[in-house]
C-alpha cells in the first residue's frame, strides 16, 4: 500500500535520512525501530507531508505523494498520531475527536461522522466519560488514547503512529499496544515508529531497523527479535551476553 524508495530527507543542507526504502502492505503492522536521532520521525514527517524537503519516491496506493500538502495526504487516507500526542489541550475531548474528522465533514456529512464518533468512544470508553472535559486535563495515557481516537476519526487506510509509548507508564504502554493490535485485527494498516523495540516488534508483522538515517536491517518481527545486533543495540543486551561472538 505504501512504498518508499531511495528516500532522502534534508533539513537545510544536512541529510538526516538517506536511501531508505520500505514497503507496507495492506493489513500489515510494520514497526520501524531505532535510537534517538535515527531519523524515524523525519521519515514519518516526509510520509505525512509535514516535511517538504525530500527526494526519492513515496507512493501510496499507487499515487506519488511528491509535492502533496499535508491536508491532501490526510484526504488520501494517511492519518498520523504525532509524537508527544499533540492533542488540542484547550478544546474539549469531544471537540478534539471531531477535529480528527475535519477533512470529512464536507464530503460525507454529519451522520457518518457521528457514527464513527460512536465507534471510537466504544473503543475508548474513558473518552466518553470525559467527553466535555478539556483535553489538557487528561492523564498521559488518556491523552494518547485521545490522539489515537482523533487519528481514527479520519477513517485512515493507513494509521501512522509516532512513539505512542513516549512518557507513559509500562502498564499504560501495554494497554496502548493492545489497542494497536486490536486495530490491526479490525483491518487497519499500521505503520508504527518506536524506541521501545521489544514491545513494537512483539506486535508487528515485519520490522525495519533505522540507524543514523540508514535502513540497516529488515525482516519479519520474529527474526528481528532474536537478531543479535538488534538485541545488543535496542533490547538492552550488551556484548558481554554474547560469549562466542555473533552466534548465527
Amino acid at each position: 500500500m505504501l512504498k518508499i524508495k531511495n528516500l532522502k530527507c534534508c533539513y537545510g543542507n544536512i541529510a538526516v535520512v538517506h536511501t531508505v526504502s520500505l514497503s507496507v502492505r495492506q493489513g500489515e503492522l510494520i514497526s520501524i525501530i531505532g535510537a534517538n536521532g535515527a531519523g524515524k520521525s523525519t521519515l514519518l514527517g516526509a510520509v505525512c507531508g509535514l516535511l517538504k524537503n525530500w527526494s526519492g519516491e513515496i507512493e501510496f496506493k499507487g499515487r506519488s505523494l511528491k509535492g502533496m500538502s499535508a491536508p491532501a495526504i490526510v484526504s488520501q487516507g494517511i492519518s498520523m498520531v504525532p509524537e508527544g500526542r499533540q492533542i488540542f489541550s484547550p478544546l474539549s475531548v469531544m471537540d478534539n475527536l471531531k477535529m480528527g474528522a475535519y477533512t470529512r465533514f464536507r464530503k460525507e456529512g454529519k451522520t457518518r461522522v457521528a457514527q464513527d464518533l460512536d465507534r471510537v468512544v466504544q473503543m475508548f470508553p474513558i473518552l466518553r466519560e470525559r467527553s466535555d472535559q478539556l483535553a489538557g486535563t487528561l492523564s498521559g495515557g488518556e491523552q494518547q488514547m485521545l490522539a489515537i481516537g482523533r487519528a481514527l476519526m479520519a477513517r485512515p487506510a493507513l494509521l501512522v503512529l509516532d512513539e505512542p509509548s513516549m512518557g507513559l507508564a509500562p502498564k499504560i504502554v501495554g494497554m496502548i499496544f493492545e489497542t494497536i493490535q486490536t486495530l490491526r485485527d479490525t483491518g487497519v494498516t499500521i505503520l508504527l515508529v518506536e524506541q521501545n523495540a521489544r514491545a513494537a516488534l512483539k506486535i508487528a508483522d515485519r520490522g525495519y531497523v533505522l540507524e543514523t538515517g540508514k535502513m540497516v536491517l529488515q525482516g519479519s518481527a520474529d527474526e528481528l527479535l532474536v537478531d543479535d545486533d538488534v538485541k545488543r543495540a535496542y533490547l538492552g543486551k550488551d556484548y558481554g551476553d554474547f560469549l562466542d561472538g555473533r552466534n548465527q
Partner: protein
Amino acid sequence: MMTDKNKTIWIEYLVFLCVVSAFGLITENTYYLQIMTFIGINTLLALGLNMLMGYTGQVSLGHAAFYGIGAYTTAILSGTYAINPWLALVCAVAAAVLIAFIVGLPTLRLSGYYLAMGTLGFGMIVNIVIREWGDVTGGASGFVGIPVLEAGSLVFMSGASYYFLVWGIVFAAIIICRRLLASRTGRALRAIHDGENAAVAIGINTHALKLEIFMFSAALGAVAGFLYAHFVLFISPESFGFMFSIKIVTMVVIGGMASVWGALLGAAVLTLLPEVLHGFAEYEMIVFGTVLMVVMIFMPQGLTRGIMDIIRTARRARA
C-alpha cells in the same frame, strides 16, 4: 448538556439586547449616546481582532489599517463621487478583504513576533498612503464632506438613531462570530492556536484558514471604519495610526482573549476610561496606564475571565 448551553447563550443575547435598548431609549444626553456609539464601533474592531488573535493566535499590529481603509473608501466614494453610502459600504468591505488577501498571502506564513512585525509594517504603509495621497484622501488635514447615512425616510444622525444602527450591527457581528466559533471552522481555529503542526497533521489547511479569518477580521474592521466615518463626518489619518492598532490589541487583551464578550468589555473599558479620567487633567495618562497595569497584574487572563473567577470564588465561599 447542549440545551443548557443553548439556553445560556439565549439568556446572554437577551440580556445584551435589553441593556442596549434600555440605554438607548432612556438616555437623552447626546454625549452619553455618542460614547456608547464609539464603544459599539470599537467592539466591532475588537471582535474582528479577537477572532484572529484570541482564537487563532495570530497577532496583528496593523488592524487600524483596515479600519482606515473602510473609513476612507466610504468617505471617498460617497463624499467625492456621491455614490450611495450603502453601496460604498460594500466597496469598503470588498477593498479591505481584497487587501487583507494580498497582504495576508505572504505575511500569514510568518508567525509570532515576525507576523506582528509584518502587520506593523503594513499598518504604517497604509497610514502613510492616507497621509500623502492628498488629492484623494485630503492628506494630513483630513477628509471633509462625508454624507449622512439614510435609509428610506430614516436619517442616521448622531443620537439615538445612530446608536441603534451601530449596536444592531454589533449584535449581528456577535452572533456571526459565535456561530462561526461553534462550528467546525471555530474548532479548527482554536486547534491552530494550540498547535499548528498537529493541526496540519489532521488535515487542516492552516494557511488558507488563517488567511480566511484574517480577511474576515479585516471585513469587520472595514464595517467599523464605515460606521465611524459616517458618524463623525470628518476623518483624519491620526485616527487610524499605529497607536490605534495598539489600542485595539489592548482592548482584546484587557477584555480577555478568546472571548466574544471580552471584546465588548475591553472595548467598553478602553473607550470609557479616557472619558472618566478627564477629571485627572494632566495626570490622565498616568492613571490610565496604572489601571491597565493593575488589571493585567491581578487578572492576567483579562477582565471577563477575572470577573468570572471572582464570582465563582465568592459563590464557593458562601456555599
